[in-house]
């Protein structure tokens, strides 16, 4: 059931997000460029969530050793890398007209996000480089738990180091946004959340299929072949 409903819901939610983002009012200072931020911020938050899920599922695997946790951890990390790539690209495209530069290594938020992106690429590479299933799950679970410390570091980097990136716009005590803009942002956060869920379900299903094929290919030669029945004489 979820196989079809979730992708359709994700598609509809993304169309709604696109509509709200493009029809919201322009910002006083940024003008229309604020529309890029609705997808940039939504993808950044979803990347944080994805890496958080990876860490939680990694702890789940370390405690229970159930393969399902490993599949969720790996799948969520892959989607998190996708969302981080979108965050980096949209941030660069927004930065050029607003800040006059695509990239600044001196900026704490940009540098820490890039580092997080490469660490999780390393997580995916580690999985590919480890053929044994148990060793792969153990190594990546440990990395998944350690790597998640970057999430609060990236989030609070704008508070810890005052560099080019602006500070926190949405805080528990105050929201420095117009209601229409906040709605556009939240609709996009909701849309990308549904997309995350749809991608996670699809990726976990694919991981199960990959594991089944791995088991099939690991089986010793001839194990699937049954011995021929010898004809007995009349």
């Amino acid at each position, binding site marked *: 059931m979820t196989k079809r409903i979730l992708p359709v819901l994700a598609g509809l939610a*993304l169309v709604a997000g*696109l509509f709200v983002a493009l029809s919201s009012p322009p910002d006083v200072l940024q*003008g*229309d*460029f604020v*529309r*890029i931020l609705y*997808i*940039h911020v939504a*993808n950044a938050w979803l990347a944080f969530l994805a890496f958080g899920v990876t860490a939680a599922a990694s702890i789940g695997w370390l405690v229970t050793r159930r393969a399902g946790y490993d599949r969720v951890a790996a799948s969520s990390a892959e989607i998190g890398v*996708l969302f981080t*790539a*979108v965050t980096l*690209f*949209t941030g660069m*495209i*927004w930065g*050029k*007209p607003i800040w006059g530069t695509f990239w600044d290594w001196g900026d704490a938020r940009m540098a820490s996000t890039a580092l997080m992106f490469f660490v999780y690429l390393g997580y995916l590479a580690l999985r590919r480089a480890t053929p044994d299933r148990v060793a792969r799950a153990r190594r990546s679970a440990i990395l998944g738990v350690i790597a998640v410390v970057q999430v609060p570091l990236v989030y609070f980097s704008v508070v810890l180091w005052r560099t080019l990136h602006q500070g926190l716009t949405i805080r528990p005590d105050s929201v420095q946004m117009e209601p229409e803009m906040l709605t556009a942002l939240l609709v996009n956060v909701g849309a990308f959340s549904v*997309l995350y869920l749809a*991608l996670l379900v*699809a*990726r976990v*299903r*694919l991981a199960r*299929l*990959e594991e*089944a*094929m791995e088991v*099939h290919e690991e089986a010793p030669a001839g194990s699937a072949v049954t011995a021929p029945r010898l004809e007995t004489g009349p």
Partner: protein
Amino acid sequence: MSAAWIWAAYLVTYGLILGYVVSLVRRARQLTRRGS
């Protein structure tokens, strides 16, 4: 000029996501074919 930047951002976003979805579908089909 601003429209070009905005469309570039949206194209990159949806392009990357679509590319990922296509890769998942292709891999699933490939595995299903190999398994059958």
